[in-house]
C-alpha cells in the first residue's frame, strides 16, 4: 500500500443515470423486438400503419437494443469500473451530463426519425446525417471524459478491462466516421459517398466491427471486472487475459467480408474474411475459458446466486455464438445459412445470451452496491434467469430450425434439374410456425426483463437515504518513474491525436474518395446506366420503407439461385446504388432481377395487398403509397448530388429531372389505365416505386438478350 493517501468521492450519480436509461431502452428495444417477431408470424400486426410496419420497426428495434440498451449498459459499467480501477473521477461533470443527455437524445431522435422513414438504408447505421454528426460529437465527449480518467489515474497499472474500453472507444469512432461519409441532399436525406460493392464492403467492415467493438470488447471489459468482483476471486489467468485482448483486437478487424460470401465481392477478400473469422474462434474461446475458469471452485454458489447464474450463462452463450460465428463464416455452411433465420438466431444468442445476461448480472450486482442496500428478491432474480434462458433457447432453436429448413428448401433440386420449391412463398409458409415459437420465446425474454426492472426498482425503493461516501485512495506515486515528463502528454493527448488523425482522414476522404471510387472501377459494364429521376425517387421510397430488411438484391453464383432468380449478380450492376441494397435476409425473394418479371399492374396490386397476387404472403400492405405524393421538386438536387459523387448525369438530365420524372410517371400510369387505375395516380409514390422495381436488373438482362441474339445469328 502507498504511504500517502487522499480522500475521493466517486461520481455515482452518472452511473445511476445510465442504469435507468439501460432499463428504459432495454424494455423498449425488447418490446419492439417481440412486436416485430409477431409481425412475421401474422402480417395483420403491421396494422396498415406506415410507422408500424416491419420494415421500419425492425431498424428501431435494433437501434434501441444495440445503442439504447447495450450502449447505456456499457456506459454505466465503464463509468463504474473505470473509476474504481483507476481510483479517479470522470474528467468533468459537464462532459458526463453532455454524454448522458446527448446519447438519450440520439436514441429518441433515432426512434422518431426511423419511424418517420428517415433511413440511411444500411443496417445498424440507418440514422441520417444530422444524427450521425451528433453521435460523433457525443462519442468524442465520452472519449475525452474517459481518457481524462486515464490521465488523472492514481493506479499505475491499467487493468485489462480498461484496455478493452480503450479499444472500444477508438475503434467505434473510426468505424462510425468512415461508414457515415455521406453528402446531404436536404436536412434529413443524404447519399453515401460509396456505391454498390464498395458501399457493401465498407458497410460490413463497419457492421461486423460494430458487433466486435460495441457488443463484444466493452462487454469483455465488463466481464473481466464484474466476474472476479462478484465471485471475489481473481481472474483465472491474468496472463491469458492479456493475450486474449491483444489477439482479439488484431484479428477482429479483418473478418467483415464474411457477411458478403458468394456476393460479387472479389474472391480473395471473401476468403480473407473467412480465414480471419475462423481464427477468431481462438481468442474468443480464450476469453470464455478465462471467465468460466474464474468460477472454478465457486460452482456451488452458482446454484444460489442469480448474479453468478447470469454470468455463467452469459459466458456460455458467448462461447456458443463465437463458435457459431466462425462456423457460419465457412463458405459451405454459409451457403445454407446466409439469408436465413439461422443468422437471426445467431445474433440473438449473442445479444440476449451474452449482452443482456451480462448486463443483468452486472445490474443485479451493482444496483444494491450503489444504493447501499440488498437486492429486493433473489427469488424474482431466479425467475428472471429461468424465464430469460428458456425464452432464449426457444428463440435459438426455432431459428435454427427455420433457417436450415428454408436454406435447404431454397436449394432443393429434383432429378430433372428443376427447383423442388419454385415458389418462394412455399418456403415461407413452412417456417411460419417457427415464427410463432420465436415470438413466444422473445416474449419470455421480455417478461424476464420486466421482472428485473421491478426487482431493481424495489431494491432502490428500499435503499437508505443516499449519502456520498468518501473513500481513502493512495496518492499517485508513480510519476517519479517518468522524469521526462511524458506523463503530462498521456491521456488527453492520446485522444486528441487520435481525433486529429480521424479529422484529417475524413477531410481528405470526402475530397478524394468520390472521384477515386467512381472512376476507376475495375469491372465496368457499359450496359448499366444510371437510374432515371423517377427511379431515384422510387429507390428512395424503397430505402425509406426498409424493403432491404426482407428482400436481398444479390443473386449468388449457385445453380439453385440461377434457376430461381437468374444470372448471378455482378459488381458492375450496382455501381449507381447509393446506398447498396444487397440485404442480409430473405424473408421475401431476391429482387436483383425483378424488373420486367411481372407487369406494372402486378406490383400495383401487390403493394396494395400482397395476398391478392401471392396467397399466404406475410408482407405488410402499403396503402399510404397510394395516397402520398412523390416529391418531384427535390429530384434535381438529388441528381446533382449524385453527379457530384461521380454518376454520369448530363446537365440537361439534371435540369430536366422533374419534367422527365413526371413524363415517366404519366407513361406508367397510362399503361395501368386499362386495369382501371385513375390518371390522377401518376403523382403518387406507388408509381415511382413501380418505376424502380421494374428497372432492377433490366440493363444487364437486355444486354444479355442482345448478345445471345447476336451469337445465335452468328451461328446461323
Amino acid at each position, binding site marked *: 500500500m502507498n504511504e500517502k493517501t487522499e480522500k475521493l468521492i466517486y461520481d455515482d450519480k452518472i452511473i445511476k443515470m445510465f442504469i435507468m436509461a439501460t432499463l428504459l431502452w432495454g424494455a423498449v428495444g425488447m418490446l419492439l423486438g417481440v412486436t416485430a417477431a409477431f409481425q412475421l408470424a401474422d402480417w395483420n400486426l403491421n396494422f396498415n400503419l406506415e410507422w408500424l410496419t416491419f420494415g421500419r420497426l425492425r431498424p428501431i428495434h435494433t437501434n434501441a437494443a444495440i445503442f439504447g440498451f447495450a450502449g447505456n449498459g456499457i456506459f454505466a459499467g465503464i463509468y463504474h469500473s473505470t473509476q474504481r480501477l483507476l481510483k479517479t473521477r470522470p474528467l468533468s461533470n459537464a462532459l458526463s451530463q453532455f454524454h448522458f443527455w446527448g446519447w438519450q437524445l440520439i436514441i429518441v431522435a433515432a426512434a422518431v426519425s426511423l419511424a418517420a422513414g428517415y433511413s440511411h438504408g444500411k443496417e445498424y447505421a440507418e440514422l441520417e446525417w444530422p444524427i450521425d454528426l451528433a453521435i460523433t460529437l457525443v462519442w468524442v465527449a465520452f472519449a475525452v471524459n474517459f481518457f481524462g480518467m486515464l490521465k488523472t489515474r492514481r493506479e499505475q497499472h491499467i487493468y485489462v478491462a480498461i484496455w478493452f474500453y480503450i479499444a472500444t472507444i477508438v475503434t467505434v469512432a473510426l468505424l462510425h466516421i468512415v461508414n457515415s461519409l455521406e453528402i446531404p441532399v436536404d436536412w434529413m436525406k443524404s447519399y453515401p459517398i460509396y456505391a454498390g460493392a*464498395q458501399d457493401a*464492403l465498407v458497410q460490413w467492415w463497419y457492421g461486423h466491427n460494430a458487433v466486435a467493438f460495441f457488443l463484444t470488447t466493452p462487454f469483455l471489459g465488463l466481464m473481466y471486472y464484474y466476474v472476479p468482483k462478484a465471485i471475489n476471486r481473481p481472474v483465472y489467468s491474468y496472463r491469458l487475459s492479456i493475450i486474449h485482448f491483444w489477439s482479439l483486437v488484431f484479428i477482429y478487424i479483418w473478418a467483415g467480408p464474411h457477411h458478403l460470401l458468394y456476393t460479387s465481392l472479389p474472391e480473395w477478400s471473401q476468403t480473407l474474411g473467412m480465414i480471419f473469422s475462423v481464427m477468431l474462434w481462438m481468442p474468443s474461446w480464450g476469453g470464455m475459458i478465462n471467465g468460466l475458469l474464474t468460477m472454478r471452485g465457486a460452482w456451488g454458489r452458482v446454484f444460489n446466486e442469480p448474479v453468478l447464474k447470469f454470468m455463467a450463462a452469459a459466458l456460455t452463450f458467448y462461447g456458443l455464438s463465437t463458435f457459431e460465428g466462425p462456423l457460419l463464416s465457412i463458405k459451405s455452411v454459409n451457403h445454407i445459412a446466409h439469408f436465413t433465420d439461422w443468422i437471426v438466431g445467431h445474433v440473438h444468442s449473442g445479444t440476449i445470451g451474452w449482452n443482456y445476461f451480462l448486463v443483468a448480472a452486472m445490474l443485479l450486482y451493482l444496483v444494491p452496491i450503489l444504493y447501499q442496500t440488498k437486492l429486493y428478491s433473489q427469488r424474482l432474480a431466479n425467475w428472471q434467469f429461468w424465464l430469460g434462458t428458456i425464452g432464449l433457447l426457444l428463440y435459438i432453436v426455432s431459428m435454427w430450425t427455420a433457417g436450415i429448413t428454408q436454406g435447404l428448401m431454397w436449394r432443393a433440386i429434383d432429378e430433372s434439374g428443376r427447383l423442388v420449391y419454385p415458389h418462394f412463398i412455399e418456403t415461407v409458409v413452412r417456417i411460419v410456425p417457427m415464427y410463432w415459437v420465436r415470438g413466444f420465446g422473445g416474449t419470455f425474454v421480455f417478461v424476464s426483463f420486466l421482472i428485473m426492472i421491478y426487482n431493481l426498482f424495489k431494491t432502490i425503493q428500499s435503499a437508505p437515504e443516499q449519502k456520498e461516501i468518501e473513500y481513502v485512495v493512495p496518492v499517485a506515486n508513480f510519476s517519479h518513474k517518468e522524469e521526462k515528463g511524458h506523463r503530462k502528454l498521456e491521456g488527453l493527448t492520446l485522444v486528441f491525436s487520435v481525433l486529429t488523425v480521424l479529422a484529417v482522414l475524413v477531410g481528405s476522404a470526402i475530397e478524394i474518395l468520390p472521384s477515386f471510387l467512381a472512376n476507376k472501377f475495375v469491372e465496368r459494364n457499359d450496359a448499366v446506366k444510371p437510374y432515371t429521376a423517377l427511379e431515384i425517387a422510387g429507390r428512395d421510397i424503397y430505402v425509406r420503407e426498409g424493403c432491404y430488411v426482407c428482400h436481398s438484391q444479390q443473386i449468388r453464383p449457385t445453380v439453385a439461385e440461377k434457376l430461381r432468380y437468374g444470372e448471378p449478380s455482378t459488381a458492375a450492376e450496382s455501381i449507381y446504388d447509393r446506398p447498396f441494397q444487397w440485404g442480409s435476409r430473405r424473408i421475401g425473394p431476391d429482387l436483383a432481377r425483378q424488373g420486367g418479371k411481372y407487369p406494372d399492374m402486378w406490383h400495383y396490386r401487390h403493394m396494395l395487398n400482397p395476398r391478392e397476387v401471392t396467397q399466404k404472403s406475410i408482407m405488410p400492405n402499403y396503402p399510404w403509397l397510394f395516397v402520398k405524393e412523390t416529391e418531384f421538386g427535390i429530384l434535381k438536387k438529388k441528381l446533382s448530388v449524385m453527379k457530384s459523387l461521380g454518376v454520369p448525369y448530363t446537365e440537361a438530365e439534371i435540369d430536366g429531372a422533374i419534367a422527365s420524372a413526371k413524363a415517366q410517371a404519366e407513361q406508367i400510369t397510362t399503361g395501368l389505365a386499362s386495369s382501371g387505375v385513375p390518371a390522377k395516380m401518376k403523382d403518387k409514390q406507388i408509381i415511382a416505386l413501380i418505376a424502380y422495381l421494374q428497372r432492377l436488373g433490366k440493363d444487364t438482362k437486355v444486354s444479355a438478350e442482345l448478345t445471345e441474339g447476336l451469337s445465335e445469328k452468328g451461328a446461323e
Partner: protein
Amino acid sequence: MNVLYFVIPLALLLGLFFVGAFLYSIYKGQYDEIDSHAQRMLLNDLQAHANDKVQPQKENV
C-alpha cells in the same frame, strides 16, 4: 473494388495504433509483473468514515 485501397490501409492504421499501444504498455512496465493486478482489483477502497455502516459486498450471499 478501389475502396479496398482505402479500407485496408485504414485497418492497418488501426492495427498500427494497437501495436503502438502494445509497445507502449510493455515499455511503461505494465507487464513487468502481472501477478498482483488480478488480486489487487478485488480490494475495495477503504471508506473514510468507518462509522458509516455500509457494507455493500455481502448482499449476494
